[in-house]
C-alpha cells in the first residue's frame, strides 16, 4: 500500500507467469466440466474453481501474500461478512 513496503515484494516475473498458467488451466477445467452433466454439482464445481482462481489472484496478483497480518485479517473479515450476508439471505428465502 505504501512505498515503505518495497522490500516485501520479492517475487519476479516468473512466479506471476506461472500463476497465470495455473489460472488458464483452471479456466479450461471449468469450461470442460460444464459440458459434463452433474446436476446441481455443476454449480458447486464452477463456484469452487472460481473461488480457487480468485484466491490465486488475491494472494499473488494483489500481493496479499506479502502484506502484513492486519490487512490479511481485514480481507478475511470482509469475505466473512459477505458470506454471512449471502448465507442469511438464503435462510430467509428458503423458509418463507
Amino acid at each position, binding site marked *: 500500500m505504501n512505498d515503505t513496503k518495497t522490500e516485501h515484494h520479492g517475487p519476479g516475473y516468473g512466479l506471476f507467469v506461472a500463476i*497465470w498458467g495455473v489460472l488458464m488451466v483452471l479456466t479450461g477445467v*471449468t469450461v470442460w466440466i460444464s459440458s459434463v452433466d452433474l446436476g446441481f454439482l455443476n454449480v458447486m464445481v464452477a463456484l469452487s474453481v472460481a473461488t480457487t482462481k480468485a484466491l490465486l489472484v*488475491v494472494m499473488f*496478483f494483489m500481493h496479499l501474500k506479502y502484506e502484513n497480518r492486519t*490487512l490479511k485479517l481485514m480481507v478475511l473479515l470482509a469475505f466473512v461478512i*459477505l458470506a454471512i450476508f449471502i448465507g442469511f439471505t438464503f435462510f430467509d*428465502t*428458503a423458509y418463507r
Partner: protein
Amino acid sequence: MGMWLFLFTEVLLFGGLFVLYAVTLGRFPVEFHEASQLLSVPMGTTNTVVLITSSLFAVLAVTALQRGDRKKSELFIGLTIVLAACFLIIKYFEWTAKFHHGIYPGSPDIADWEPGKQAFFALYYAMTGLHGIHIVIGMAVLGWVWWLIRQEDCTPEYFVALENAGLYWHLVDLIWIFLFPLFYLIA
C-alpha cells in the same frame, strides 16, 4: 489500506447483485439453464483469457517499476489497456448479436417469455454492464498512471498510484472470474 477499504465496498456492491442472482437461480433453475444456453461460451471464455492475461500484465508492470525498469513498466501498462479494449470489443459484438435476436432489456420479443428467462437476462445486462463500466474506469485509471510514470511522478521509489490502479484492475478481473461461470457455464 484505504484502497483495500474502497475495494471492500466494491465487493459489497457486486455482492448484493450476486445474492440477487443466487436467489433468482434458486427460484427458476430450469429457466436459467435454458437462458444461459443462449450465451456464447467461446466468446465468454475468450474474454476470460483476455482479462486474466491483462491482469498478468498489470502485475508485471508493478514488478518492472519496482526493479526500476520504467520503459518495460509503461509497455506492460499499455498491453493491459489494449487487452481491456479487446474485452470491451468482444463484449460489444456479444451484446450486438443479442440485440439482433431481440434480447435486450425492455424488448417486446422477450416480454412474453417465462419470467425466469427474463430475470436471467435482466441480471445478465445489469451485472455485465456494471462490470463493463468498471472496465472503462479501470482503463482510464491505468492510462492516467501510465502518464504519471512518463512524467516521473510515479517512480520506482514511490509507486502507490500504479499499485492501487493494479489492485483496482485485479478486482475487476476477480468479479469477471465469478460472472463468467455463473452466466455462461451454469447450463
